[in-house]
Structure formats: structure tokens, C-alpha cells
């Protein structure tokens, strides 16, 4: 990895090409023209990193990567993760502030994307609003997703389990969760299953090892690994992210064998 002390923005975390294209365009429109993505689309072209590097995390499970970058002098920009209209806006704004981008210009550049994200989420608020969700620990995406489901789709959080709670990397997320949220880290799975049945949520987000057994007992589930495979970041994907939670509920309601 080459070294450089120039002021550069580094986006850290594997993103789908289509998402990377969108973010590149937004940063260019904002006026931030030295932007790198790690990993980039080509593994041979590693971006330069040094004291001028400011980085945004695009995924919440990059502890080791972040440490290596910090060792080279890079500084993390504190932000929530770019999930949902609000998460994406706050994430972009963290970079805009570091580059002293004028607030009105920021609003102009992001207005169309924000409007589209709000429009696509609107229809899901009807089917998901007020529904209760329970997270089992799996991908570490649980906290940003819980924040998105609560803030932007008005879902109720019963328990948010996550395998590892990196309080620093989640400093943009945790303050946005409702004050009385039940957060759990790691966990005894048997006791968590008991709590889940007691809570009887409308949808359970869990790993593939639990999902089918839960379905067989009448629970509706969303397998969490799909949230990692699917492009869910950014304005244009906000609706796709909501769809992943709405579809299992819709399916259960649609099926009939009578």
C-alpha cells in the first residue's frame, strides 16, 4: 500500500459495484475529488494511505482493518453506517464536514437521492410500521439495521443481539437507538431463544442455523446473511433493504394450503 499524507477520503468496506458508483458520483458532486475505495474494484490498485487520510467505514465489522489504517496515520470520521435515508445522509455529511462543504450545497446534492429513498420507504412503512423485530447475533450489522428499522420504518425493537459491540465504531449509531432498547452482546443462545419466544416478535433476524427451526414453529424470520450479500447501502438501495424484511412477512400472509 503506497503512503501519502495528502488529504484523501477513503471508504472502507466491501460494497457492490453499483453502490460504489453511486457514492463516487455523490462525492464528486459534493466537490470531494480525492476518494478511494478499499477494497477497490481492482485488487492491484491499492489506494495511498497516510496522515492526510480520513476514512469512513461502510461496514461495522472492520476492527482489524481500522487498526491497520490508524497505524498508518489515517483518521476515522465518526458517522452512522450508510443504511437508510438518514444513515446515508449522516454518513455523507461526516465527509462533507471534514471537507468544509457548505451546508446548502450538501442539501442540493443529496436532495434527489433523499427524496427517492423516502419515497421507496414510504410503502414499506405501511407493512412494517409497528411490527416487532428481534435480532439474534450474526453479522454485526444488527445495530445499524435496528436503528434503520426503528427510525425510518417505525418498527419496534424487542432485543438487538450482536456478536460483538464495538462501541467506538458504533458511536454514530448507539445514540440514535431508543433509550430503553435491550442490547445484548454474544449470548447464551438457549436463553435468547426463550426470550425470543416470550417476546413473540413479528419477525426474527437470525442466522441460517436458527431460521428454519423458527419458521417450523410459526415464527417469521429473515436470515441475516442475506443482508450482507444484498446491496443495502445508499439512497437507491434503502427500499431494497426494507424489502428484505417485508418479503418474509408478505410470504407468510400469502401462503394458503386450505
Amino acid at each position, binding site marked *: 500500500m503506497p503512503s501519502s499524507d495528502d488529504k484523501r477520503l477513503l471508504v472502507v468496506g466491501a460494497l457492490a459495484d453499483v453502490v460504489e458508483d453511486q457514492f463516487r458520483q455523490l462525492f464528486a458532486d459534493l466537490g470531494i475529488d480525492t476518494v478511494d475505495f478499499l477494497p477497490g474494484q481492482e485488487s492491484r490498485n491499492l489506494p495511498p494511505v497516510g496522515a492526510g487520510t480520513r476514512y469512513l467505514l461502510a461496514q461495522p465489522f472492520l476492527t482489524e482493518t481500522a487498526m491497520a489504517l490508524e497505524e498508518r496515520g489515517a483518521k476515522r470520521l465518526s458517522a452512522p453506517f450508510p443504511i437508510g435515508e438518514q444513515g446515508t445522509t449522516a454518513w455523507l455529511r461526516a465527509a462533507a464536514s471534514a471537507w468544509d462543504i457548505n451546508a446548502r450545497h450538501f442539501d442540493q446534492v443529496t436532495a434527489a437521492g433523499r427524496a427517492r429513498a423516502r*419515497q421507496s420507504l414510504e410503502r414499506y412503512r405501511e407493512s412494517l410500521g409497528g411490527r416487532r423485530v428481534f435480532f439474534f447475533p450474526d453479522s454485526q450489522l444488527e445495530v445499524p439495521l435496528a436503528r434503520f428499522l426503528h427510525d425510518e420504518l417505525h418498527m419496534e425493537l424487542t432485543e438487538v443481539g450482536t456478536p460483538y459491540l464495538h462501541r467506538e465504531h458504533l458511536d454514530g449509531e448507539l445514540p440514535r437507538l431508543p433509550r430503553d432498547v435491550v442490547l445484548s452482546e454474544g449470548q447464551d443462545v438457549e436463553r435468547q431463544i426463550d426470550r425470543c419466544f416470550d417476546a413473540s416478535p413479528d419477525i426474527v433476524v437470525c442466522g*441460517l442455523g436458527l431460521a428454519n427451526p423458527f419458521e417450523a414453529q410459526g415464527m417469521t424470520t429473515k436470515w441475516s446473511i442475506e443482508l450482507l450479500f444484498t446491496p443495502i447501502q445508499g439512497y437507491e438501495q434503502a*427500499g431494497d433493504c426494507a*424489502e428484505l424484511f417485508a418479503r*418474509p412477512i*408478505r*410470504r407468510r400472509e400469502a*401462503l394458503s*394450503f386450505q
Partner: protein
Amino acid sequence: MKLTLWTYEGPPHVGAMRIATAMKDVHYVLHAPQGDTYADLLFTMIERRDERPPVTYTTFQARDLGADTAQLFQDAVKDAYERFKPKAMIVGASCTAELIQDDPGGLSEALNLPIPVIPLELPSYQRKENWGASETFYFITRALAQLPDEAATAAQKLRPSCNLLGATALGFRHRDDVHELTGLMHQLGIDVNVIAPWEATPDDIARIPVADFNVVMYPEIADTTARWLKRQFGQPFTQTVPIGVAATKAFINEVVEITGVDASQVLASGVSRLPWYSRSIDSTYLTGKRVFIFGDATHVFSAARIAHEEMAFEVVGLGTYSREFARDVRALARDLGVEALITDDYLDVEERIQALQPELVLGTQMERHIAKRLGIGCTVISSPVHVQDFPASYSPQMGFEGANTIFDSWVHPLMMGLEEHLLGMFSEDFEFGNTARPSHLGGGANGHEEAPAVDGDSDELQWSADAEKTLSRIPFFVRGKARRNTETYARERGIQTITSETLYDAKAHFGR
């Protein structure tokens, strides 16, 4: 009359052949010109039958037309009787022979054969194969069925009994459906008195009225006969075709109502895996898959219901070539909010499929060809079918095991949920590149590109380079839909050049 390369149904005498070939000890003498003997290979090749169909063709030639074709016919009937020693014969004319008006019925009656000889009246130019099969079964039953004597009726009283009516040669999975329903009846404590026409002898047909009720397996074939049996002998018949989980349950309940048997154990044992397979999480990706359905009325009805309720697909179009059931199919389409396509022209079907761009086609042999050409997955659900749809393995459509077969065979041409994601993630990879053909549809690089929108004049619309690039980022299995939606959105708003923004605006507008 319209010339065509291919038809869903043959002329009515092919339907009569399907009945004769399904039965035992029956022979069919068909007054037909030489060329009509081609029909034998439908049975020997496509259904892999190891015996020639029990059909004698008079095979008159052009030069015979001036001479005595009536004598030719009588000789053929006499020879067939002596050679094959059938217990009953059916006689009729093919479409070409109908024109010479030789009266096969009268001519064979004059021969005074010691067996029943049943004349068929099958007007070839107004009707088609399934109707011909239905009429033939009806004529045979009417001629042979006998009022049961008291001894037979008394013997029958021990357990309720039924007849399974409608299975023929060349039918879609008839062999296995008969086996499945026979098993179901045994589980319910009901005897199967006669299966017909499938492997039935004329003596079996005579015994049909002994049973307590009739099961109409395929209304196209057995409805007319069952109605006559009800009028003549007071035998009730079932209305539900037991294809799919819900339909099988409804069928069992109908049987319970007729016979009073206790079906609680059969219903409680949850014998189909379809409901769980459909609920389990890998099936989430099936939700809302766009499906087009075409075939005979029986299978289209069942498939539409299963697709909608048991798989949670979106039925985007359906139709049938069974004109006799057009009204019912139109009503079904209305219930599902789509327009029914009633046609026997496969080019109409192809046009509809192309316009609708479904993700799965459920159809006949012809829809399989159409779907293959368009790069769309397809499962065959109805006759007419080709040789691969007479599988060696047990593959019924009816009953609980039939529902298992249906789940597997419908899901097979689709991609699994995880597979869709992998294709999206590796879209830059040479194997999964944007121009690569989906591997499950035959594979190979640089196959089809998604079909352009067919409605409207797409020449006015320009796609900018950045919009094309964004479109290429969208996985191939939704790209066609994205292109269509974007163009519709642009047209509605008078946009002439589509940019990336237009594409995203359309996405937000239409949702997923």
C-alpha cells in the same frame, strides 16, 4: 382452415386413438387414407409404448376413391376382428375419410360380428382431440355399461367403492396419477372398482355402474361420461381435481361427503412436503416470481391456484387451448386480475410471453420451446408433451406426492436465493458476466441480451451511456424488468433521454 406448423391438439380421431390405446381388448378400425397412419408414432415413440396402438387403418389411396371404398372398409373390419380377436370394436372415419361419407357404423353393423361394434361420430372439422377422446369414452361406456345385478351390488356393500375415470394414453402423468389416487383410495378405505379407460377391458366398462361414485380425474376426458353415468345410474362424481395440497384436501372432503368414510387420519398425517418446503426460508426468494401459465384447462386451473396460494408466485398471465372450458378459464383469470388467452395458435402464446417477460413459464411442450428461445425457465405442466415428459421415475401430479413433484419441478428451472446473490456479486467475473447466459438455462457466453420492451415505440427513447452502465450493474434476471419499468416511466413523463437518474427515479416509483 389455417395451415400451421404445430398444434396443441390433433383431430378428434387421435383422441379416439388415445382411448383405444389406453384400453385392453378393444380395436379401432379407422377409415383413413395412407398418410394418417403417422399417428401410431405418437404412442410408440413419444410415450415409449412397446406395442403398436390397436388401430387398423383402411389406408385407401387416391386411386381407390373411384372404386368401392365401402368394401375396403368392411374387409378391414373383418380382417381386424379375425386377426386381433378384440372383445369390442370402435369404428370411425378420420378427417379425410369423413368426406367420402361411407358410414362406418352401418357398414360394420351389416357384418354381424359377435362382439359389440361401436360407431363413433366425430366431426373432424369443428372439434379436436380432447373432445374426440371424451366422446369416444362416452360412446364406449354408453354401449357397454350394464345395470348391476343384485348380487354384485350386495358384494359391493362391504366397503365403499369408486371408479377412476379419465386416464388415457398420451396423457400428462396419467399413469402415475392413477397409481397415486389408487393409493389414496386405499388409505381412505375405499375400493377402486374400475379404472377407465386406462387398461380397462370391455368387461370392466360393463362393471362401472357397480361402484358408489366416480372420480373425474380429467374433466376434458371424463366429464361427459360421468354426467351420463349420474343420469343413468345415479352415481355421484367428484368435482375437484386433486392437484395441489389444498385441492387434494378439498377432493378428500368431497369423497368423505359422498361416502362418509373417516379421513381424519389421512388429512392429519400431513403427507405432502410442499407446505413446509414453501414456508422454509430458501423459498422466500420465490415470493412474487412472475409466472405465465398455459395448457389444458384442468392443469391450468390447478397450476394457477398452486402458483398463487401454495408458492406465492405472481400469476402475470394464463390461458388455455381447451375452448370447451374457455368460460371457466376466463373467470379464473379475472379472479387473478389478468387477461385470459384462449387460443390454439402457439404464435399468440409466444407473443404474450414475450410481452409479459415472466420469470417462469408453466406450459406444454410448445411453451417449453418458446421459453427456451427467450431464455426463460420453464416447467411442463400439461399435454401435449414430448418424450422426456414420460419419465421413468414415479412423478404424479395428483395427490400429496403429486404436490411434492410439483414443488420440485417448478423450483428446478429457477435459481436458488443464494445463487441469485452470487450472480449479482460476481457480475464482473467472466463466468457470470453481464452478457453470459444463465447457466441453468443452458449456459454459454454471450447468449441472449434481455429482450427489449415490445410495446410502444422504443426508438424515441435514448439510453445515455451512464444509464446503460447502471443497467449493466443490475443482475440479468431483473434487468429486463428494470429496462421496461424505466422506459414506461420515461414515456409517461415525456423524457427522451434516459439517464442514471431516470433509472433510479423509476426504481423509487415502482418499488421492487
